[in-house]
């Protein structure tokens, strides 16, 4: 069954490590839907969160192939039920004086922040699950989206567990 998976990957912070990970996906024909990367509390280790689309067999191959990379320290699959998925989106929408109030109302309902505003446009910052972000984006589309930038999912497992444990 084709579905979405989220993988969290700890990697050594070496030059080229990101190419090695992403190159594997393109080379073997796996689809990345989003990707986010950043340092962990240990500056020698970075954490890559990859959202991908595929079936169980593809997921098994991806995890096994990733595990072969010398710079990959750990791979964990993050199930949606037991994890927090968040994605940051900045979206610039048309907001004439007439429409402004209704946009602000929408933002309030979705508990997002307005981080920039001028006579014709505003920038809205949303940090939520990709589904929630999609829902708001769909509504904002009616006002006219000028541009947007999404970070892709970043995620952590709920509870006391840690990817750094064995």
């Amino acid at each position, binding site marked *: 069954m084709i579905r979405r998976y989220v993988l969290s990957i700890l990697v050594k912070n*070496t*030059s*080229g490590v990101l*190419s*090695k990970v992403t*190159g594997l996906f393109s*080379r073997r024909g796996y689809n990345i839907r989003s990707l986010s990367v950043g340092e962990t509390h240990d500056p020698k280790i970075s954490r890559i969160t990859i959202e991908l689309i595929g079936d169980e*067999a593809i997921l*098994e*191959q991806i995890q*096994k*192939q990733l*595990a*072969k*990379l*010398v*710079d990959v320290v750990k791979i964990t699959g993050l199930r949606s039920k037991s994890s927090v998925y968040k994605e940051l989106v900045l979206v610039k929408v048309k907001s004439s004086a007439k429409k402004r109030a209704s946009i602000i109302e929408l933002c309030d309902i979705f508990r997002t922040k307005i981080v920039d505003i001028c006579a014709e446009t505003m920038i809205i910052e949303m940090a939520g699950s990709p589904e929630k972000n999609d829902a708001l984006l769909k509504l904002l589309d009616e006002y006219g989206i000028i541009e947007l930038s999404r970070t892709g999912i970043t995620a952590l497992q709920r509870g006391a567990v840690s990817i750094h444990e064995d």
Partner: protein
Amino acid sequence: MECLKEQDVDTVFGFPGGTVIALYNALYDYPEINHILTCHEQHAAHAADGYARATGKPGVVFATSGPGATNLVTGIATAYMDSIPMVAITGNVEKKNLGKDSFQEIDITGVTIPITKHNVIVKEISELADAIREAFYVAQSGRPGPVLVDVPKDITIMEGEYEPEKPREIAHQNAFEKEDIAEAIRAINASEKPFILAGGGVIAAGAEKELHELAKKLNAPVTMTLMGLGAFPAGDEQYTGMIGMHGTKTSAMCASHCDLLITIGARFSERVTSDRAKFAKQANILHIDVDPAEINKNINADYEIMGNAKDVLKALLPGVEKKEDTAWMEQVRHWKRSYPLDRATRNARFPKKVLQAMQDEAPEGTVFTTEVGQHQMWSAQFLRIDQPRQFISSGGLGTMGFGLGAAIGAAVGTGRQVVNIAGDGSFHMNLQEIVTAVKHRLPVMILVLNNNVLGMVRQWQKLFFEQRYSQTTLNNPTDYVKLAEAFGAYGIDISNERDLHAAFKKAFAHKGPVIVKCDIHEDENVLPMVPGGKPLDDIILDLEK
């Protein structure tokens, strides 16, 4: 250099250049390291690969930045596809010039990501020793493969503190549990028609004795992939011949009639399985491989054991019961009698004669290397390979031009007689390296099966492209004997079938490189053949009845 010695490196293949002058300057002080200078970096990489395949030790190759490094690419990819341990050390421009499109700068770590097991650029002298140690470790551990270490010129000039360290013991990376072994033993003991498929993993693990013991206990037929040739003696009556596109009908029949396919150190390449969906579909599959990613990649396994072939077989053997039932092996013998390679490859009678005459005259322990094409498949079919590391061929990548470099590496590594079987097409891809063989007076014979065409492609054109022989007719005007003499080698032209044995006798008596050229007909085919993507049952035995 101290790191290389620490890793017990006795031989390096390579070619100097601007960014590795300091490296070669250091080499000057290490006469105990034998450096083989080739004419071209590609063949230095193939030589390091051939050295590794023949000796089991990692091959080492040096090249300069830019074109030197890119010339290694085909050689590294060849080693990668066949899981051969190799360490490539390349120079690069000084750190301050990296990323500036400097003279002879190339991002070789970027280029080689898909074809190395691991690669690294060393930007601090303090990291150099550990990078080289890790390269040797990674190249040899688990499933072997090539590793590239890129070193900017200024790092090669700097001097750093060096503290000797013993090489890390190579881990087998076994990931199997007692339960996996127990389950596999149950499956094996329950099987009435087991069939063993052995690949290069058996050779890499040095598991030929254990494989032999398993085969004898089970009284089961054994086939091998191209990479596995030598893992089980070709002379043994349980051997059914190679499997796959140009494998025997007996092996194909075994694959489609067995009830348990015991696959050891093989990865179900499409050249083996052809139509994956139909391959051995009636059988349970027991897949033993050191690389977990190979399990369920091409063929789904019913039983899986992730681990080094030798360790796994050692764990399995005590539980495997001796099979007394001979009915299955009787059936296999019947197939072998009904479908001998001879009959199937009626057309290849002459190449077979040539190869067998050559092997008759070859000294004990001769190593065979091949280029890629029809001659390669004939060699795989007709040479009697009884020892692991005796047959060296580019299986995965199928690199024309691989064989001569590999032969040089194998000769340097083993000191034994090496025969590189070539076609006239492949021969012209690497003939400059005859110079290297001559300079080192290596016992290398190049047997050119000269049919004046690119035979394998032509065969496909014949079968699938209405005999439109586009660009596969070579008719090179090369005079092989004169060419041999011009390079300082010895040349023999076999023009008469009756001269075969005498000619090879003479050729093997010569000290140093020999080129033996033998004309064969352009319409000799490699048969049997399973057309690409078709099930093994669609095997073509004869083209011209």
